[in-house]
């Protein structure tokens, strides 16, 4: 059974992403971002359907340092972390089918 989507903060980010036994897709988002809201339910669906990855969120408003560290300049940005390192980056909201296709190699 796949798990839900957790929130990462500056205190938890490295530990969670670094020690994960499968790829972690991190969604950089904020409350004021319309396109982020559009993809939120899609990510919920992917999280419950896909066992091969986990998904976590970083609120850039509350965690600007994480966003800066990974040079996020536009949201939504999705970064796939493998063994704690960024392996793939997707910028902008996309429909579910395109998202799944883009992250297909990790599923």
């Amino acid at each position, binding site marked *: 059974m796949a798990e839900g989507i957790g929130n990462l903060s500056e205190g938890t980010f490295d530990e969670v992403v670094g020690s994960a036994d499968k790829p972690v897709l991190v969604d950089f988002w904020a409350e004021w*971002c*319309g396109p982020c*809201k*559009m*993809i939120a339910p899609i990510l919920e669906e992917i999280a419950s359907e896909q066992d091969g990855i986990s998904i976590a969120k970083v609120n850039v408003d509350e965690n600007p340092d994480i966003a800066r560290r990974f040079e996020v300049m*536009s949201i939504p940005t999705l970064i796939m972390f493998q063994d704690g390192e960024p392996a793939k980056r997707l*910028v*902008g909201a*996309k429909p*579910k089918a395109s998202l799944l296709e883009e992250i297909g190699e990790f599923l």
Partner: protein
Amino acid sequence: MSNDRTREVIVIGSGPAGLTAAIYASRAQLSPLVVEGEPSSTSDQPGGQLMLTTDVENYPGFPDGVMGPELMMNFRAQAERFGAEFITAKVTDVDFSSRPFGVWVGEEEHRAEAVIVSTGARSLMLDIDREDELLGHGVSTCATCDGFFFRDQEIVVVGGGDSAMEEASFLTRFASKVTVIVRRDVLRASKIMQERAHANPKIVFLWNAEVAALHGETKLDGVTVKDTRTGEKSRLDADGLFVAIGHRPNTDLFVGQLELHANGYLKTFDGRSHTNVEGVFACGDVQDDWYRQAVTAAGSGCMAAIDAERWLESQGH
């Protein structure tokens, strides 16, 4: 793959026009299907152009303003409450040559006695080299989403209309300096937006100018500005670029099926929402190159639903 049931109404698009049409149509027991579009970071997405804005200050009923995305989520919830159904996808093809009309989402076919077209308009990009490559790396389609990342940095906004002024003013919350590049020596923007921009000490204007090139290795660090009178070029340092130079109607789908004006907008007739095809109605920015307001789009969405309802009635539905 075909859905056997022929519906009374399909609404294509889900901005203020489409969702208002859906509210009225669902309250009239027409159980509309709304094909709302698919998520993107451009204005062509569910909820429409307001999904990329912040404070909407001119929508009646909100004395303190309302956030664009919040307003659109409320429109959608209201339509859903009365039974509108949604498909989060883009229409890929339509057939208005015979009734019931055909609307395709990929291989999936839907049929309806009446169709309401509210596909809106999308923001134009500069259409110059490296624009796509630098998207999300300094080039942005959404000031609301990305302004935050340009704290104490220098930004260029291209355009002279209300949306350019709104973006420029909004971006001064973060940026140290916003340079507005205007093709002519006057602004198209409304007086209140002009005054607000002129009064803002962080905003400077560059007149008779256009962006000719984008610079930066992995992210934007400057633009080439070309003087529209002399052709003279100069470099301007910039960390961010936001474009608000106008719109193009989303009518590609309807070419050859519905009558369009020379500028690509859909034709409606007799001051109502009728198109040249009986049973197909149009509302919102897809048929309006003049007012282009959320409230006029919503108003025209109401008109389209009422026109569709009366037409269906006249057909014995």
